[in-house]
């Protein structure tokens, strides 16, 4: 345990560089997911933008935070937050999509982004 802590302290510069990279990438993913939520044309396409924030953005920022963890228990907690998000976010996204589909929400389709006519 002592040796691991010493090693963790020794590679501080490397950790700082790596976590800058991860947090920068995660920040870009979170912001572009949010831009997608505002920009995309209909509800179903916005689901995908929200998915970027939930998976790529959140996990990258959590990895960046993991590299800065001062004690092992902090690292474990960050790991559990990541695991919970990994397992719950697709369930929540699917629940929203399924609820909208069940009440008869029609998606925009095709490159022209128009609603499909009935009987097509």
């Amino acid at each position, binding site marked *: 345990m002592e040796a691991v802590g010493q090693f963790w302290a020794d590679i501080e510069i490397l950790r*700082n560089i790596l*976590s*800058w990279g991860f*947090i*920068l990438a*995660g*920040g*870009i993913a*979170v*912001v572009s*997911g*949010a*831009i997608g*939520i*505002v920009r995309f044309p209909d*509800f179903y396409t*916005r*689901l995908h933008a*929200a998915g970027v*924030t*939930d998976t790529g*953005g*959140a996990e990258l*920022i*959590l990895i*960046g*935070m993991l590299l*800065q*963890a*001062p*004690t092992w228990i*902090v690292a474990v*907690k*960050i790991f*559990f*937050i990541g695991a*919970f*998000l990994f397992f*719950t*976010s697709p*369930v*929540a*996204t699917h*629940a*929203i999509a399924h*609820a*909208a589909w*069940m*009440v008869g*929400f029609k998606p925009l389709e095709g490159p022209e982004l128009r609603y499909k006519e009935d009987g097509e």
Partner: protein
Amino acid sequence: MFAAATAAIIAAMVLALVRAFAGPSLYDRILAGNSFGTKTVLLIGLMGFLTGRPDFLDIALLYALINFASTIAILRFFSYRRSREEA
């Protein structure tokens, strides 16, 4: 580093709020609310690091679970209301 990430997340939260208020449908608003919750989890964690109190992570962990449960609960609530209207 954490300050930059916090700024990015707050900007993303504002954008999610724009979608939550603009709608137009109920499901857009629920989606924006769920996405806002995920960003809140990250924000709480980052605030813990910014202020040098990583104990905040316990709150973030709890918030992740509450956010998930509340999204499911809201969807349940509206599906019940809908089925009563149809009946």
